[in-house]
């Protein structure tokens, strides 16, 4: 039957709401309104579909599946700790990519043989990109959740395997377009999944956020292609919007982190990704007790706090804030230095510190605070490592080489609160830990901070 005219009109409204959503999310003032606008658009589009007069054979199962999926998404999003949020976004992204690929598979099973060329191309594209996004996102999740190593995984002959899989994937894609068969479709899906995993495996710690953003754009394109398969305008618009904005966002992120996008993208092919140092040799470091650290901080004129992921894991944001308040009360100038990728994603640390009600004006961005370090008495690094590692400036072989860092080594003294000598997420040794002006206080960030605060109160 003909689709009533108000259906495409409702889709148009939804598409506009999606555009306003992205627009809103680009500015702090309108960000929440942007989210709401997107959600309303999605709700409208989904509701309209049920009354649009399309064939709905399995209505009960469909409604149950929608509800079950929504509840799973809702619970996951509500329960997740803010520290684990990046990997949840990766999982959601994988779900979207998987859904797009499966939609194309079902549609192919219905109309595949004897379909026109454009339909076949769009189907192949959806399955390929959706599959890559799905498995790539799962591997990203495993890395961020530390269920597997966070270091770049370089398989023996990984480069050859990757190229081989890439060639086979493209070959099966072309073959499927030329002579459609279900067997080829399954082969394409499996190869895409393998390729997605191979694509992400060699990516090192610092590049993972960029990869999430990139896979997000991939899923967008895959959804757009599935819209082509289904002749659904809204899917084309929504998917393309995400694909385009995601691509731009990926390059903005890469720029903010000083990472050449090409090395992230083609790491799997070039085989040049470094495994990182980690020689493991025993070298002398200067360890101190909480009392010593309290004295160093308490008699400084200017202190800069560098919060990292370790702070967030230990849930020590409020304790750090207490310390900052105590120091401020003693007339000491205190600032927080926020690296663009402190935490696990751009802006992640801002979210975490905002959660602990740290005053916004004390949060200083990297470019703003870097000149201040040379005039700083003590820098307190809490659970951060890679973002203050001078290897990013000097060691051309380091996986983080070229990433802009906080110049804490310019300060008079540096104090690291660390759990152990274990290297950071990127898995590389930090020379600064062995510098004579560096003091280490080992232990859980929250424990250590609490002890420092107690000592400081007694001074």
């Amino acid at each position: 039957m003909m689709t009533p005219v108000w259906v495409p009109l409702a889709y148009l409204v939804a598409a506009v709401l999606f555009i306003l959503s992205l627009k809103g999310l680009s500015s702090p003032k309108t960000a929440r309104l942007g989210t709401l606008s997107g959600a309303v658009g999605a709700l409208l589009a989904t509701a309209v579909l049920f009354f649009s007069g399309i064939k709905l054979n399995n209505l009960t199962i469909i409604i149950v599946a929608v509800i079950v999926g929504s509840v799973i998404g809702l619970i996951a999003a509500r329960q997740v700790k803010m520290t684990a949020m990046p990997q949840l976004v990766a999982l959601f992204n994988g779900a979207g990519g998987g859904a797009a690929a499966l939609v194309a598979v079902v549609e192919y099973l219905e109309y595949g043989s004897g379909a026109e060329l454009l339909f076949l191309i769009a189907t192949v594209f959806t399955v390929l990109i959706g599959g890559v996004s799905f498995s790539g996102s799962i591997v990203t999740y495993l890395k961020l959740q530390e269920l597997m190593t966070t270091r770049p995984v370089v398989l023996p002959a990984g480069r050859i395997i990757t190229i081989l899989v890439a060639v086979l994937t493209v070959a099966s894609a072309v073959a499927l377009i030329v002579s459609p068969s279900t067997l080829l479709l399954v082969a394409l899906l499996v190869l895409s999944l393998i390729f997605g995993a191979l694509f992400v495996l060699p990516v090192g710690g610092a590049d993972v956020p960029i990869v999430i953003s990139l896979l997000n754009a991939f899923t967008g394109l895959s959804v757009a292609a599935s819209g082509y398969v289904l002749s659904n305008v809204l899917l084309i618009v929504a998917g393309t919007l995400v694909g385009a904005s995601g691509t731009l966002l990926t390059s903005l992120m890469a720029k903010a982190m000083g990472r050449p996008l090409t090395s992230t993208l083609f790491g799997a092919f070039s085989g040049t990704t470094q495994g990182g140092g980690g020689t493991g040799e025993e070298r002398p470091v200067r360890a101190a007790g909480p009392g010593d650290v309290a004295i160093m901080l308490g008699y400084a004129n200017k202190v800069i706090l560098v919060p990292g992921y370790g702070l967030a894991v230990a849930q020590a944001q409020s304790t750090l804030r207490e310390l900052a308040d105590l120091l401020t009360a003693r007339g000491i100038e205190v600032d927080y230095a926020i690296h663009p990728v402190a935490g696990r994603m751009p802006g992640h640390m801002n979210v975490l510190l905002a959660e602990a009600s740290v005053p916004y004006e004390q949060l200083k961005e990297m470019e703003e605070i870097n000149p201040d370090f040379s005039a700083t008495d003590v820098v307190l690094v809490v659970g951060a490592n890679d973002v203050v590692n001078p290897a990013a400036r000097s060691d051309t072989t380091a996986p983080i080489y070229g990433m802009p860092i906080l110049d804490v080594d310019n300060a008079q003294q540096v104090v690291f609160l660390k759990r152990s000598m274990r290297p950071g997420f990127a898995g590389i040794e930090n020379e600064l830990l062995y510098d004579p002006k560096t003091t280490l206080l080992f232990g859980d960030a929250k424990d250590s901070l609490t002890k420092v605060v107690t000592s400081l109160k007694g001074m």
Partner: protein
Amino acid sequence: MDGVALLTIFVLSIFVGFEVVSKVSTILHTPLMSGANAIHGIVLIGGITVTGASTSLVQTIIGVIAILLGAINLVGGFVVTDRMLGMFKSKKTAKGEEVL
């Protein structure tokens, strides 16, 4: 709709997509990515469409999985984005309290 019309929409959407996020601040990179991530969850309607038109059990099973994944992406994506932004809002309140 014919292929060329769909292609037109596709190309124009690329430009809109680039344009809307061109002035985003670093702080909002993560929420923006998460919001965009939620929007592609609209593939849910694709899942519903193919499952509704399904003529075999295999299609229905695959379609239902697609619906589940799409709904997770869509609902979870928007909720987690809102939670992230809620953190920023609580910051403003905290600032307000300090002024008082």
